[in-house]
């Protein structure tokens, strides 16, 4: 990537844009954690040295424009269908590194069949699953992962989400970890530096599951949508910690590298 400045003599670069991110200003709202998730994925692609054989399958939702932000080949998919499109790409070009980037509406509502069956087939793909408990792009409607009592434009005040009308939040990692073809399944949160470091380790493992031919890797990232949650960015991070993590416990649910894994959950070592 060309730079328009010269590094001062003796200075050492300690932080820069990963090669796998393009030099583009994103459309994400101030306070949104998509930017962190994008950067973590890009850093992993750089570290694994696979950027030039990586294909992003963008989904429908706030991250639909991710193809503008990652400096990789990309194919944009219909709502929920990213794992099916990824399957077509990966089977056609097995040497490629293929990942989907999907939100909770995309993956856990309209795309439940596609992610479960991609895992069932053991597709060698990686899925980054952004769970912010709401439909962001369409203006704050209930997601399958919306918490009980959480107010959205379709689960309005004074009750918020009522279980008797709208059911209970769905836990994707717990479902996916039951499927033999899922090689790595983890849930992490983007609410503080320690958790962000753990998230990056999990993302790397999920890509390694693909590259080493073990099967599907999925990392769920608990994320904030402060605009639709109607909070300041700081309050949103606190709300994530005190409300989302108790419902969506963090950890590694399945890891091909750990013998006998496949049930239960273990804390990933702090990175």
């Amino acid at each position, binding site marked *: 990537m060309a730079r328009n400045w010269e590094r001062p003599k003796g200075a050492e670069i300690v932080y820069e844009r990963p090669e796998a991110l393009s030099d583009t200003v994103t459309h994400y709202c101030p306070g949104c954690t998509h930017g962190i998730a994008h950067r973590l994925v890009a850093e992993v692609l750089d570290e694994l040295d696979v950027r030039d054989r990586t294909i992003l399958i963008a989904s429908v939702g706030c991250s639909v424009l991710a193809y503008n932000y990652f400096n990789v080949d990309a194919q944009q998919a219909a709502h929920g269908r990213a794992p099916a499109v990824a399957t*077509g790409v990966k089977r056609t070009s097995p040497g*490629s590194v293929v990942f989907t980037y999907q939100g909770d509406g995309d993956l856990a509502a309209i795309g439940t069949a596609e992610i479960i069956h991609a895992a069932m087939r053991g597709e060698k793909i990686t899925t980054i699953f952004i769970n912010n408990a709401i439909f962001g792009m369409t203006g704050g409607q209930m997601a399958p992962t919306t918490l009980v009592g959480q107010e959205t434009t379709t689960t309005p005040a004074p009750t918020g989400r009522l279980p008797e009308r709208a059911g209970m939040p769905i836990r994707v990692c717990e479902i996916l970890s039951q499927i033999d073809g899922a090689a790595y399944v983890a849930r992490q949160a983007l609410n503080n530096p320690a958790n962000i470091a753990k998230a990056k380790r999990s993302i790397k493992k999920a890509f390694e599951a693909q590259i080493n031919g073990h099967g599907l890797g999925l990392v769920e990232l608990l994320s904030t949508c402060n605009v639709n949650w109607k909070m300041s960015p700081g309050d949103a991070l606190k709300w994530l910690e005190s409300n989302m993590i108790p419902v969506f416990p963090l950890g590694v649910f399945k890891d091909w590298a750990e013998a006998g894994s496949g049930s239960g959950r273990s804390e990933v070592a702090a990175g």
Partner: protein
Amino acid sequence: MVLGRKVLMKGNEALAEAAVRAGCRFFAGYPITPQNEIPEYLSHRLPEVGGTFIQAESELAAINMVYGAGGAGARAMTSSSSPGVSLKQEGISYMAAAEVPGVIVNMVRGGPGLGGIQPAQSDYYQATRGGGHGDYRTVVFGPATVQEAVDVMGQAFALADKYRMPVVILGDGMIGQMMEPVVLPEPVDPTTLPLKTWITRGAKDRNPNVINSLYLDPEKCEALNLRLQAKYQEITATQQMAEIAYPGSQYYVVAYGTTARICRMAVTEARANGLAVGLIRPITLWPFPTDSFEKVMDDAKGFLTVEMSLGQMVDDVRLAVNGRTPVYFYGRAGGMVPSAEEVLIEIEKMTRGGGR
């Protein structure tokens, strides 16, 4: 199978083999009658040539796998029958918009809803008007014999690649299930096909390729639509296919697919009875072969459209004729197949100037 020699094959299996010989190396589908012999055949045949067969979890997933495989550069195909093809419309619209090639076979059965499993032609509107949301078209072939189905398969993949768009082969349960002698074409080695520079294989030593159908700026979305329309106009001008039997006749029966074979029997009988009747048999349903109508229009006094539906292609016949002669219609629906005797009665009515 020996080249150039006639072999007896079921329509669905012949189509599947023709796809492999056209360089198809990716198939995803979901079981539905009456097309199951296509995925069953390809489940063993594609791995033999290094290709991929996937039984998908739904028709939605199958067409989106084809969208992915086509985007990654494969000659890719899916097949289904009417209710399943309704589900595929989402992916077909995305393929049309993102300009990703692929072939979709629809062995049409009676509808609407779950309908039945007997042959029908009631998906004509869906196939020829795009089918999904948005202002787009797909090239649509309506073969009348197993041999013709085999022959159009090669053209379907060639046109899909040339114009970067989905192409539909609209058969019916009869074409799929019938056994007929066929001569299979010489196989195409897909590695010898022209390199596609737009595909997603990794941005090595180049800028990233993006396959996309999202245009939030309406000016850009209109520009996409105008580009697609220019492509459709070129196809309309250059890719029409039809057979005209007995040109110079005063009356014509218009029919495609299985119905055209029945109508040919009726036309032969009518001519034996001294009636000056010909047959126009569209092979491409989109683009509709309007040029063929112009060729016969000077002497024509009437057209009888016969379909296994209650009147869909007849609209295109009316548009082609544009009020210059009467246009008559006869159809059966829901899996019922018109008989040559029924068609003959309608031909006689037309030549007497009755009915419409």
